[in-house]
């Protein structure tokens, strides 16, 4: 297959509805790193007006965080595609879900006012909306595609995550799913559900690279390693780790 034809087909779910915390950066990172791999990322914006949506048409689906108030409308729209999403996850394609939007793909979200949001049930997780927001740094070791990666990001936690799935990462510092243990996020085959903002793919290009390689492999391209300059991100990681190791925190889960 000629190198120039390498394409990663990406879907960006509800960019104007799930729009908080600068998460469009993740798509910019995907485009950038795909380019280093000699591939082009073609991104479709999926929203309420999209017709003929089929998750299986994509190599990568990104669902950014949004306001929980929007989730009922989003889940209603996504429900007819539940089986295709399940097939997508099972096939080892890459679904990246960040922040609050884990609720869309999980079970029940209990809201502070007593109401509930029922997610798609793709992952075995339930959620409890928090009365107080918790914002902090997040640093952990994550497993993806058979490799281990150090991840740094921010977390703005609006809900506690009761996950019965395999955790995506083991915390070195941060709140993670509940602030009570070292579990961060969930992973199912190659689908990542994480509390990490940042955007995660900008701050951690080593993970982005592996995601790009996974997407290309899933599309039948030969796995060819590629290099690019990550020195800026490495410096960022180092200085932030120093910051985190010296700061005052009330978290006790990583001690």
């Amino acid at each position: 297959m000629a190198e120039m034809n390498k394409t990663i087909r990406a879907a960006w779910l509800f960019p104007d509805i799930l729009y908080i915390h600068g998460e469009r950066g993740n798509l910019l990172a995907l485009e950038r790193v795909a380019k280093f791999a000699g591939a082009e990322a073609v991104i479709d914006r999926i929203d309420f007006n999209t017709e003929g949506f089929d998750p299986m048409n994509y190599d990568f689906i990104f669902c950014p965080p949004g306001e929980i108030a929007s989730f009922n409308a989003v889940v209603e729209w996504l429900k007819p595609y539940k089986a295709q999403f399940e097939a997508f996850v099972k096939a080892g394609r890459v679904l990246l879900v960040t922040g609050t939007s884990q609720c869309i793909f999980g079970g029940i979200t209990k809201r502070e006012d007593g109401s509930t949001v029922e997610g798609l049930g793709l992952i075995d997780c339930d959620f409890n909306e928090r009365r107080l927001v918790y914002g902090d740094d997040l640093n952990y070791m994550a497993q993806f595609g058979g490799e281990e990666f150090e991840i740094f990001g921010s977390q703005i936690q609006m809900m506690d995550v009761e996950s019965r799935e395999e955790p995506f990462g083991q915390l070195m510092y941060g709140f993670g799913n509940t602030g009570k243990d070292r579990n961060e996020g969930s992973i199912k085959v190659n689908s990542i559900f994480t509390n990490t903002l940042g955007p995660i793919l900008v701050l951690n290009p080593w993970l982005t690279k592996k995601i790009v390689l996974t997407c290309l492999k899933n599309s039948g391209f030969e796995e060819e390693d590629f290099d690019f300059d990550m020195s800026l991100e490495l410096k960022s990681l180092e200085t932030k780790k120093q910051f985190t190791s010296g700061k005052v925190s009330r978290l006790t889960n990583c001690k």
Partner: protein
Amino acid sequence: MKFLLALWFGKAINFLINIIDKTRGSNFSGEKALLIDKQMVAHFKGIDPEKVLFITGTNGKSTSNNLINHILKTNGKTVISNLEGANLLAGVATALLKSSSLLGRVKADYFIFETDERFLPIIHAQLPAKNLLVTNLQKDQVQRNGDPDFIYRKVAPVMKKEGMRLFLNNEEPRAKSFDKVTSNVITYGVEKHADSFVKQEGFPTMACPVCHHKIVFDHYNNDGVGPFLCTHCGNKSNPEADYVVRDVDFAGRKFTAEGVEFNMPYNIPYMLYNYAAAVAVAKEFAGIEPADAAKAFGSFKNVGGRFEILKYKDKTIKYMRIKQENPETLQTCINIMAGDKEKKMVCLGLCPLVDMIPNYTNTFYAFDCDFSQLAAGDVEKYFCFSERVCYDTANRLIYEGVDPEKIVIIDSEDVDQIFAEIDKAETDNIYMITWLHTYEHMQKKLKLKEAE
């Protein structure tokens, strides 16, 4: 009796603070007095709720408060207010106890208080204002506020209070949506002007606060503020607000409202909504005609530290303060820099967040901002400084297509290093975005040098 004890205790503290430094003490005495009487604010005598205005929202509270105060006072009204920006319950308590008699009676024509969004329900429970100005509800302080809907839910019950009159930004979707809960609404807005803008395709807009579908903006007058329409439920800005700032002439520093020409004390786009709100409040709340309000605009001096000029050797440093974690204020500053077609140096000191425990290193809000116009302009170099997040700031610029060769990075907020980097610039046109304390250190350093 508890109230009197609290009052006298607070007054004693104020007396002592006045001896030490008259410019301080906007919050402390109220905070301590509230320990004695938690309901202290409710116990002051002589306040007519019809004469009380609260100003709340993400951006523009302090400026609106200061401008409205200035207009009212210039027109002979007496006002009790928290002009120093202490906008929690203790700040309101402090302002009232400073102005009260020994028995807790306060006397003024009007009571105007800037109120923090999260504390609005708490303050309103003790001081049931019948007038509320909402500037905007946007992404801000996400470490404690999460997302705008979190704040929306906190303030919404106050909007619904019986007899409440709302002054609403016609072109900010969340603020405007409160017109669904009461009919007693006055709207204010801004006509399209030379610095109105659209964002590159690819930037998200926002979810409709009513139905959670997509909001489309015709254009932005400020980031996230402009004529809008929900593509699903039809929620939209009014074609014309009740009070509109028109004919904006930044070069001539003037605009019109209600057919009257106004001086523009600060020719900065983001202040236009403050001007519109102030004209509306002056007329509807205090009965001051626009022509009389206009007389006050020429002499208005805003609270310091928003936009400052610092002369350094042969260079002019234009300092703009942003609220950290707040993409709207960052976008506004980017637009100001992009609007300057002269060659410039851009100094970006985005910092870790240190206002509560735990401190953290959020920089993601920069990805909500469109740097493309700035990157396409005549920028000699970008200087990314500040501990811990300078690399992320530089990376954001690289993502916008800025040549890495043009970016200087220093993992420090040391003012000597900042001045040294500014010294190296060929251009004398220097823009700086950073925390106020870094800017104040720079100011202090220059004053010391001048004194030597």
